[in-house]
Each structure stands twice: as structure tokens, then as C-alpha cells.
């Protein structure tokens, strides 16, 4: 039951879900690049510039992952292409 005063009082926004979603994304991104070479963010930006010449993608569409297997490292790069015909024509 809502009290009369509750109704009149301005409630702060329910922002916890926003915090959770932001953290979910940044924590998973930081985990995937943890211990990885520090040139990765710059490489990611340069790759974005190259890809943007052909396809209109956002920086968030590029995912870089470094995995360690026994003895060697694998750099995994995935680019989520936008749906539909988003190819730039010049």
C-alpha cells in the first residue's frame, strides 16, 4: 500500500539495473583482455578505422580476446556486423 506521503514525495530513479548492466559489460571486457599486451586498445581503435572504411560499425562491435593455450597465445578478433545493408559506398 502506498502512503499519501510516498505519493507526494519524489522518488529517486531505480538505477541499480543500469549499474548492473554497465558492470556486466565492462567487467567481462576487462577480463577478456587481462594480462594481454597493452597495445590492444590502440590496435582495436586502428582496426576500427580500417573496418569503418567498408562497414559502419561501432567500437563496441569489435571484440578482442587473448587466450593462452599450453605454450602459445591466440589473439581472437570478432567483429559484429550490423544487420541489413550497412556497407558504406564511399
Amino acid at each position, binding site marked *: 500500500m502506498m502512503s499519501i506521503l510516498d505519493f507526494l514525495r519524489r522518488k529517486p530513479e531505480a538505477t541499480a539495473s543500469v549499474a548492473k548492466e554497465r558492470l556486466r559489460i565492462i*567487467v567481462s571486457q576487462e577480463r577478456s583482455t587481462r594480462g594481454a599486451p597493452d597495445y590492444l586498445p590502440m590496435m582495436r581503435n586502428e582496426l576500427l578505422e580500417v573496418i569503418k572504411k567498408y562497414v559502419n560499425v561501432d567500437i563496441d562491435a569489435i571484440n578482442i580476446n587473448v587466450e593462452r593455450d599450453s605454450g602459445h597465445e591466440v589473439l581472437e578478433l570478432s567483429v559484429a556486423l550490423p544487420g541489413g545493408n550497412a556497407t558504406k559506398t564511399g
Partner: protein
Amino acid sequence: MTAETIVVTSGKGGVGKTTTSASLATGLAIAGKKVAVIDFDVGLRNLDLIMGCERRVVYDFVNVVHDEATLKQALIKDKRHDNLYVLAASQTRDKDALTQEGVEKVLDGLSADGFDYIVCDSPAGIEKGAHLAMYFADHAVVVVNPEVSSVRDSDRILGLLASKTRRAERGEGAITQHLLLTRYNPTRVAAGEMLSVGDVEEILGIKVVGVIPESENVLAASNAGIPVILDPNSHAGQAYTDTVARILGEERPLRFVEAPKKGFFQRVFGS
């Protein structure tokens, strides 16, 4: 018999590391263990104030590391518990005064003196002092607040604990990681204004070992120099008691995580 070393750490400052170290050390002492609690925050001594022994500091941790005092001289016996000792941080040296060999010597000395537990109160950040506080740990208590920057920092710390400790380097098995959620306000969680226990557990992929409610008693306890775990009437003190029991292997349900029910008058007239 070697002592079990527990680091209390967080990355972010001001989340309750020293409050937790003081209550954890006191709780372990109440459980009958011989405990030393060490302030690793060289340059910014604080644990002595929270433990209420600030006027009895003569020699400190750095003095022992540099052989300017013996462990016996530097350990301050707690006024309330015979089996609890405090090793204060130096106020005059900088963080480079600590070395890995020096810290190892002190921890080995405590082990040889028959201590069961050594609680290492880490400084904030991820630099040398924090690194040394966690390096020799067998267990870690990662203190986190239900707030974005604290959660993100604690994920960094969990990563460091898994890789930058002696146990990890020697392949002796991972150190036990305990997540402790402090400054929790169930009413704000219920209103959707604060991350919930479940949210934090889900983001970090680790269960909490305890939840300490936000409480005015914590400030009162630090004002008085009495670890809040010794305040049996406070929810924060009771939650710390539960947490220590869980760290010692006991199973206890979480308390004080639900918003208090409003009474009739509060429902009618608002809180």
C-alpha cells in the same frame, strides 16, 4: 605449524578494509585463535586507531622489517583479548620501506611464535604495499561496496589474487577468495537504487562470505576505538560475527539483507 595468512584487500579505498581487518582479527581471537593483525598501509597508519591502541605504538612493522626492533617489541597486545596482537604501520617511512624479503621474515617470525592467523590489512590501490600484503596470503577477503567503481576494482583484485601471489607463482593451488559486501542498505536495494547481493555475485562470479549492513554503529565503534564486532547490539557487529564463523568453516544464513518491514504508522504516514 605455520600460521594462516589472510589478506583484507579491495583495490578501491574507503570501502571498509580496516574496519573489516579489525573485526576479523578480533573475531578470530574470540574463537580462541592466536592472531596478529598487520597494517600494511605504510605512511598512513590507521589500524591502531580502529583497534584503540594508538597511544601504545612504540615500534612498528617497518622497524621490524629493518631489524630496528624485534617482533616482541613491536607487537602491541590487545587490551581486551590476550591472544590478539597489532603490528602498526610506520608513519614516517614511505611505501618503499617494505621489501618482499622483509615481509616474509616478519610472517615467518609470527609463525614461529605460534600464531594461528595473520591478518594483513592492505592499503588501497594495486601498488607495492597492496602487492606485498597479498603476496604471501593463503586466504583473501575482498571487501566490496554495492557501487560501480568498487565492484569493478574488486574484479581487478580477484584477478591479481589468482596470479600475483606466491601460491599462484609456485603452483601451490589458488588462494581462498572470500567476497565481503559492506555498506549494504537493504531498503535502497528494495527500491532499486542499489546493486543487490545477487547482482554483485553475478557480476563477479563469486558468492559472498558475508554482507555487512550500512550502520551508524560502525562510525560509533571507530570513534571509540572498539572493533564493531564487539558491539553485540549492532547488526554490523552481528554480521561480522557470522562472517568470521563462515571463514572458519561454519555454515550460517545471511542476515540483515532484507528491507525492514514498515509498521502501520509508517505505511500510513510514510517513513
